Each structure stands twice: as C-alpha cells, then as structure tokens.
C-alpha cells in the first residue's frame, strides 16, 4: 500500500496516507523520500526541495507559498507556508 499520494505531476507536495515517523523512507512509484519529521496522516510532505516564496502546488494548482525554504521530506504545514489570498502578512 502507498504511504503517500502525489495528486498531480506538477505538485511539490504529497499527502500522507499513514502517520509517518522521522527516519522512515518512502519508496513507491519510482521515487524515494527520506522523512525528516513526524507527519500525521492527511498532512503534507515536501516531494521536492522548495525555495522560500515558491508556490506550493497541490492538485496541480497553487495553494499558497513557502515562507521559508523547505527540504524534500519535510512536513509542509502552517509553520512554513501561507495562503496568498486575504493575506495580512507584512511584505
């Protein structure tokens, strides 16, 4: 069974189908990801290195941007990304 799901070829995140533990290695569908943090089921893991300010792509669509650089295998969530819309963050 798959541990993660990449929903679209242009996505830079994958959705975890099980709880992942730091140190796990995901090998499926021809890719390999070393898991860097504990990541709960349903949460996102970086499927590529993502630069600060780069768009976060899910379902092939932009869902926000990185506020810091994110490494392949890192948990991608509210601590390192933000939405683009209705943003009150200081630019």
């Amino acid at each position, binding site marked *: 069974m798959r541990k993660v*799901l990449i929903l679209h070829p242009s996505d830079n995140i994958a959705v975890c189908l099980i709880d992942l533990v730091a140190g796990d290695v995901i090998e499926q569908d021809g890719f390999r990801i070393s898991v860097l943090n504990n990541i709960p089921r*349903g*949460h*996102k893991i970086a499927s590529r290195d993502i630069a600060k300010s780069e768009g976060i792509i899910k379902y092939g669509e932009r*869902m926000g941007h990185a506020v810091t650089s994110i490494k392949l295998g890192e948990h991608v969530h509210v601590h390192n*990304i933000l939405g683009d819309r209705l943003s009150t963050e200081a630019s």
Partner: protein
Amino acid sequence: MTSQLFAYKRETGQWGLRNHVLILPLHSALASSARAIADASNGAVAISHDWSGEVDNDLPRILFTLTGYAANPNNYAVVFLSIGTPNEKQIIAGAQSLGLTRFTTLSLPEIGSMEKLQEKAISVANEYMKGAVAEKRIAAPWSAIVLGLECGGSDALSGITANPALGVASDRLVELGATSVLGETTEILGAEHLLAARAIDPEVGKKIVAMVARYEASINYEGIDIRGAQPSRGNIEGGLSTLEEKSLGAAKKAGNAPFTGVLEFGEKPVVPGLYFMDTPGHDIEQLAGFGAGHINVVVFTSGRGTPTGSAIMPTIKVSTNTPMFESIPDLIDLDAGTIADGVETLAQVGDRIFDEILEVANGKETKAELGGHHEFALSRMYNTVV
C-alpha cells in the same frame, strides 16, 4: 436496484422527495412551542430560529429565507405560528406566491393562550399528516432532484476521497437532467478561477468571480484576517494549511460539469444544471439557504464528523476517512475513506453515493433523519439593531 425515481408532484411543477408537515414559528418567542407541537404530533417537523421581528438591514434576507423555506417542495403543508406582525404576513403571502397551497396560520394574540395555540396546532398538524401519509409517490423525471453539495469539518482527505466522489455522483445527476448546487463562498475562494472556466458562458463565469470578490471585499472591509478562521483549527489539525487548499478540495464536490448559473443566498434554480450559490461556510446557515432555494436532498461530506441534519431536506453524510466513519456510525451514512486505503476507486464510491441519493430520494431515511437532527440557523450580514 431500480433506477426509477418516485416523488410527490407539486402544483408548481416542482417535486417533493419528502411530504413534511412543517411547524414554522414566525417569531423566536414561538420557537419552543413549535418544537413541542411537532414532538406531540404524529410526525410533523419543526424548525426554531432567533428572529424576533427586528427590522434592520438583514430583514430582506431573513424574510427571503423563511419564505423560501416554507415553500420548499419537500413540504406537504405548513403550520405558521404567528404573533401577527405585518412582516409575518409578508412571509406567508410570499410562500403562497412561491406555490405553497396547504397552510394554516395560528395567531397567538387571536387565540389568546399558548396552551390553546399548541392544542390547535397539534390537531391541524395531525390532520395534514393524514393527507401527507395517504399521498402516493408517482414516477418522476431526474429533473425532480435538486441536490445540495455541502462539506463541513474538512480534512486533508476531503479533496481526495469524499469530495471528488460526490463530484462523480453530481456529474452523473446533472448529465441525467437533475440540478446540483454548490455553496460556501468562503470555500471556493482561491478556486473560483477553475469554476469560472467551466461556466456555460463568459457572463456566468464573471458572476462566479464577482461573487467571490464581493465576499473578499466584505471581509477586507471588516479588517478580519480570515486565516484565523479559515482553515479552521479543526481543518489545520486535519492537515489543511491554507484557505486555497481547502477551497481546491471543497470545489471537487461539484465534479466537472459546466456551471449553468449562480444563485444568491436562498434563490431557487429555475432550469436544471449545476449552480453555485453564495452562502456562508457555516454549515447550518448554508443548509437554511439550501432549503430556501428549494433544494430537496443534500449530500454533506465531512472529515471530522457532524450530526447536522435538516427538518425538511434529507441529508446524506459521507465520511472522508474510515476511522471517523467507524467512530460515529449512527451519524454517517457512507464512507469514502476506502479510496485513500485503495479498497475502492473514486468511480466506485461515486456510484455508491449516486445510488444512495436515489434511494434516499425514493424515501430511504438518512441517519440524520433517523436521529431527528433538525438544525436551522438564519444567516445575517449585519449587527442586529433593535
């Protein structure tokens, strides 16, 4: 199973999937009585609300909601409980003009006692119930189905399992000539360009984008950072990080069919097709808007689970993940979590949802109906001024 739909034909040409006798209080002071009357009757239902006749900027929205709700084709008859204000008369007259034919208005000042009002209401409701039970369903076309698409308590699987599976069912129904309505303006923000691209003409596309822009402007006007509420704390625990992410997943409920039009809150669709309705993300307020817009069956997807139901619209609950389905089996009708586990495909779950909609349309009771979950809330835009 049969693929024939059977429903109750109304004089307007609309179809009811239920034959409810609704006890509708026209003032919040009559809300508890409405519930008591329904409980003491032979099967009538009631809603309660908190409008006390206040005349302010929200008055048109409140009157529109209650008027449309009273005239929903799932209602066989309505018993209005009144304290006799002109605005109450406007609701009753409006419901009549929308096609409500069987109704009785009981006025507290005229009857003079709450006890007598309740006795009278129970006897009127029971009389209507006899007629409602005696009426037979007849063969109905697919256009009889007016489906509402709702999600609440989204998690990261919503956009992968339950929502796209509901999209499969919605697409099949629209293809057959039914109507399907996506709501929750909050939850298409960030995905509106994708919906607009599916509009039947550029005008409809512009209206979808304009509705979201209007909402966004109202949020900005109030100086709210909506990201404090959307995604909600529960959504964030479930793995959703941004409003756009939630919206991209939420929009999948509407499948891939073209959008025929947009509807204001509580407005009813006139020709079959897929619509977007401007509603709040608040689940119960949205359901009230759906009821006012003459939607007659709802599918509600949830990642975190909810008891939500409606007094008049059967509401089918679909879980996005199997652990939630297994934790509250008395609240959830179908599980779409099987898609994430690789047990079923999207198409298979979509077909199961389609079959369930047809069975429920034909009279099968949902978990929310069996549990007596009859939620209702008025949607307001402004502060209440009295």
